[in-house]
């Protein structure tokens, strides 16, 4: 049971923050390309899901899974996108992502006068608190499997 990594994108597709806790395999491309790939994929999937869904959906795209991991997606009304990859035992990380947004992002970034909107998130305070929060999650448990 573990959290692999976390991305935070802004409304324009720029990756503001990335951190990994338990990533066994790298993508094989540069970080910039990886962020663009992730954002592009999310954009396409969201649009696909909203068009092709056979039912009325209020929430839209929330997560997808492969045989090894699950990707959770959370978008705020202000256009911020939180993406977290966990293993398959985590069925719903929405609350965690919501908490990261309202308690960590809003408190430590938005209220930080030195953090300008649109810049990557440099604040050490934010990083340490996020790290502590992720490690304290009930489903975080780094094992070497």
């Amino acid at each position, binding site marked *: 049971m573990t959290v692999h990594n976390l991305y935070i994108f802004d409304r324009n597709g720029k990756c503001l923050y990335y951190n990994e806790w338990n990533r066994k395999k790298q993508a094989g491309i540069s970080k910039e390309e990886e962020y663009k790939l992730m954002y592009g994929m999310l954009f396409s999937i969201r649009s696909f899901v909203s068009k092709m869904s056979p039912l009325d959906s209020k929430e839209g795209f929330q997560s997808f899974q492969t045989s090894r991991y699950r990707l959770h997606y959370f978008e705020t009304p202000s256009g911020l996108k939180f993406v977290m990859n966990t293993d398959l035992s985590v069925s719903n990380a929405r609350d965690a992502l919501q908490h990261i947004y309202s308690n960590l992002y809003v*408190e430590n970034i938005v*209220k*930080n*006068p*030195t953090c300008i909107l649109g810049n990557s998130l440099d*604040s*050490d*305070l934010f990083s340490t608190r996020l790290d502590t929060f992720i490690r304290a999650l009930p489903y975080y448990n780094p094992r070497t499997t």
Partner: protein
Amino acid sequence: MADDALFEFLHMEIVAHVYRDLQFIKGETDNKDRASRVSILEGMGYRVGQGLIERLTRDSPCFKDELDVMKFICKDFWTKVFRRQVDNLRTNHQGTYVLQDNKFNLLTQLSNGKQYLDQAPKYLAFSCGVVRGALSNLGLESVVTAEVSIMPSCKFQVVIQKL
């Protein structure tokens, strides 16, 4: 009372505005400019402090002496303005007081240690002015400076001017 976040955001923008505008006019920053910006912020705080203290001491009796005034500032005034009390008050009994606040309201979201240390004084100037204004309307002229070494803890030094 209105939401605290309102004042925090307004304060952030006031500081940013003062620094942005002056930079635009002068074209570059040097020590003299930095001092003038800090004094603009402090002047704003001075006027705010003067008004605030009238309102907050409406119902209190006269203060016996200087130390009593400082204790009021540390407890009631600090609680109303910064939502907590000053953690430590020291004095040399000759007009100098050091107020230490270990979790200063306007610095908690900035950092938890040394990051952004050089930017911290900007965000303390207004508060220094508030304290100076409050004291001046209580009859004590003073000079208030602030120093910070590890955020969010900071020390305000108040030197009462004897006439």
